[in-house]
C-alpha cells in the first residue's frame, strides 16, 4: 500500500478504529485459546490468529445495513457488527446468553438484526445464500450490498461456483471473497486446485477479481470499499482474494505439524497487527504508548467478557426442544 493513498483514502479515525478491532480480535481469540487449553471450552476453536486484518478491513468498509456472511475466521466482522466479547465467549462456553443460546458453538453464530448471516460448517454454503440476500436487495431496489466469503478449500465446492455464476448473470450487489490462508485443515493449496491464484476462478464467471494482501488492513479496506461501491452502483459482483496464512492449527486441538516451520516464520514478520502499527507510526497516527493503551483497553474488555460469560447461566436441557419452527412474528419485514 502506498502511504499517500492510505492518507488520502482512509480517514484517520477509521484507521485507528480498525487498529482497535485488530487488537480486540487478537485479545479475544487469545483468551479463547487459553480457555480451550484450560479445558474450559470444549469443541472446536477456529481462530483468525494472523488473519485478523481481513474481517476487520472488509467489515469496516461496509455500511451498517449491508449484510455479511462471514467465513469462520472472521471474528473481527462479528465484533464490528456489535457482537460483544461477552456474547462471543458465552457462545464458546455454550451459555444461554450466547447468540445461539447454546444451540450451536464457537463461530457458528449470526443475527439478522445486526446483518450477520450465521456461519454453516459446510464451507461455501452461505455464498448462494448471500447471492439471495443480494437478490432481495435488487428486487426491492434497495441500495444495500451482501459480502460473503469462504476459504481456499471452500472454493472447490459447487456452491461457490453456483453462487458466483448466478450473481454474475444477474449482476447482483454482492462481493465475494476468499480468505486464502493456504491450508484447508491439513490440505495445502496445491492439492486443492491446479491454479496458484484463486482469483483465476472469477474469470470463468465474467467477474472482475483482485488479489489483495490479506495481512494489510488498509489494503483490505480499500479493495473492499471499491468492490462494495461497484456493487452498490449496480455494476455487479467482484471477487477478492485475500492472501494470508493460517498461523494456528485448523482448530486449537491441531498442532498443524504439516505446515513447514519456515513458512510460519516468514509470515510472522507480516503479522497484521505489526503491519498496522508500522503504518500508523509512518502516518504519525500512533506510537508505542498509544498501542500499549489500546492493548490495556482491549484486555479489560475481554476480562469483563469472560466474567459475563462465566456468570451466565447454561441452558436447561429441555430448551433443546425450542425453536425448530419459526412463528410469523419472527419473519424479517
Amino acid at each position, binding site marked *: 500500500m502506498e502511504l499517500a493513498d492510505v492518507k488520502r483514502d482512509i480517514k484517520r479515525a477509521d484507521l485507528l478504529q480498525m487498529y482497535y478491532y485488530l487488537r480486540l480480535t487478537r485479545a479475544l481469540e487469545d483468551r479463547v485459546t487459553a480457555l480451550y487449553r484450560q479445558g474450559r471450552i470444549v469443541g472446536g476453536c477456529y481462530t483468525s490468529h494472523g488473519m485478523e486484518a481481513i474481517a476487520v478491513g472488509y467489515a469496516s468498509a461496509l455500511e451498517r445495513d449491508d*449484510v455479511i456472511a462471514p467465513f469462520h475466521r472472521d471474528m473481527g466482522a462479528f465484533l464490528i457488527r456489535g457482537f460483544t466479547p461477552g456474547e462471543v465467549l458465552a457462545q464458546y462456553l455454550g451459555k444461554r446468553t450466547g*447468540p*445461539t443460546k447454546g*444451540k*450451536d458453538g464457537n463461530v*457458528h*453464530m*449470526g*443475527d*439478522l438484526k445486526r446483518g450477520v*448471516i*450465521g456461519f*454453516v460448517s*459446510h464451507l461455501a*454454503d*452461505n*455464498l*448462494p*445464500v*448471500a*447471492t*439471495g*440476500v*443480494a*437478490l*432481495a*436487495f*435488487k*428486487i*426491492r431496489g434497495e441500495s444495500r450490498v*451482501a459480502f460473503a466469503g469462504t476459504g481456499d478449500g471452500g472454493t472447490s465446492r*459447487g*456452491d461457490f461456483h*453456483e*453462487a458466483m*455464476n*448466478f450473481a454474475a*448473470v*444477474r449482476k447482483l450487489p454482492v462481493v465475494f471473497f476468499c480468505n486464502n490462508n493456504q491450508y484447508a485443515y491439513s490440505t495445502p493449496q496445491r492439492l486443492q486446485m491446479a491454479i496458484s491464484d484463486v482469483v483465476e476462478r472469477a474469470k470463468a464467471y465474467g467477474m472482475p477479481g483482485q488479489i489483495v494482501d490479506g495481512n494489510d488492513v488498509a489494503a483490505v479496506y480499500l479493495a473492499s470499499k471499491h468492490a462494495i461501491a461497484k456493487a452498490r452502483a449496480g455494476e455487479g459482483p467482484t471477487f477478492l482474494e485475500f492472501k494470508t496464512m493460517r498461523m494456528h492449527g485448523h482448530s486449537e486441538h491441531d498442532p498443524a505439524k504439516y505446515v513447514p516451520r519456515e513458512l510460519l516464520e516468514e509470515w510472522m514478520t507480516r503479522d497484521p497487527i505489526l503491519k498496522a502499527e508500522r503504518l500508523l507510526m509512518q502516518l504519525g497516527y500512533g506510537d508505542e504508548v498509544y498501542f500499549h493503551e489500546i492493548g490495556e483497553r482491549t484486555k479489560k474488555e475481554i476480562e469483563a467478557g469472560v466474567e459475563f460469560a462465566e456468570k451466565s447461566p447454561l441452558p436447561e436441557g429441555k430448551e433443546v426442544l425450542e*425453536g*425448530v*419452527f*419459526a*412463528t*410469523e412474528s*419472527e*419473519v*424479517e*419485514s
Partner: protein
Amino acid sequence: MTTATAASEVSYLEAISQALDEEMTRDERVFLLGEDIGIYGGAFRITEGFLQKYGEWRVLDTPLAESGFVGAAIGAAMMGMRPVVEMQFADFISCAFDQITEVAAKNHYRWGAAVPMVIRAPFGGGVHGGPFHSECPEGWFFHSPGLKLVAPSTPYDAKGLLKAAIRDPNPVIYFEHKYLYRRVKAVLPQEDYIVPIGKADIKRPGNDLSIITYGAMVHLALEAAQMLTNEGIDVEVVDLRTLIPLDKETVYGSVRKTSKVILLHEDNKTGGVGAEIAALLAEECFDSLDGPIIRIAPPDTPVPFSTPLEEFFLPKTADIISAARRLAAY
C-alpha cells in the same frame, strides 16, 4: 378419479398455477425462481404467462444449479421475501439437499433466522419418467427437523395448501404429484382460502378399515374402497395432506374407530412415511388394533422406466383389496 370437464372446473395443475398467481398478486414479497419457469413457462407450463405479468425480477429463470438457487431463495427469504422455488422434477432436489437440510432447516433453530420459503417438487411415477423423473423423495426430508412437508391429492387441497405454504414462516416442501396434474379436476371456491398445514382430511369415512395415505395414492385408495363395498368392507380413507407436522390426532382417531389399518404410499417401503406411522400406531394405538399393520408400498428399487416394470413397481387396487380381505379375517 374425476374426469368431468365442465367449464368451471380446474385441474390440479391449474389450481397450483392459480395459487401462485393469486399469492403473487396479493403479496409483492412473493417471487418465483427455477429452471425454465419464465420464458418457457415451466416444464409443466404451470407458470405460463407469469414472466409477462410479473416481470423478470419476480419470475427468475435460473442457471441449472439447484443448490445455488435454493441457497439464493434461503437468503432472500431471510431478508423478508417469500420465494417459491420450482424444482423441475422432485428428483433433482438431491442436488440441493445440503442447502435444504443444513441451511434452510437449521437456521431458525441455530440462530433464530426465519426462512419463509416454498420448494415445489413435482414428484411421483405412473408417467413413464424412469429413475430420474418419477421419484418420491419425501422420505429424505421426513427425517430432517425444521422442514414442513405437504403433499396434496386434489385441486382444492393443491391450491389451499400452496397458499398456506407460501404464507408459512418456515421452509415448506410442497410435493405436487405429476400424475394428478391433468387427471383430477374440481370446481374451486371463488373466494380466497387456505388448507391449513398439519391437518389431515378424511376423504371417505368408513367403519371397518383405515387406509392412511397421501398424494396420488389417495385416488387409488378411493377406487379400492369403492370396489370393497361389494364385499361389505367399509373403508375409511385418510389423506394425510401434510407429512410434517403429522396430524397424529386424525390418524389415531381413525385407527381407534376402525381398529384395522393399511398404510399406503408410493415412496419405497423401507424407512418411508408408512414405517414411521406404523411405529407410532404400535406405540399409541396398540390396544385398539385388531389386526396387523399392513404397509403397501413399492419395492426397494429405483423407479423403473418400462411399462410392465413400472406397473409391477407401483401399488395397485388389487394389492389394497387383498390386504383388506386379509384384515377382514381378524
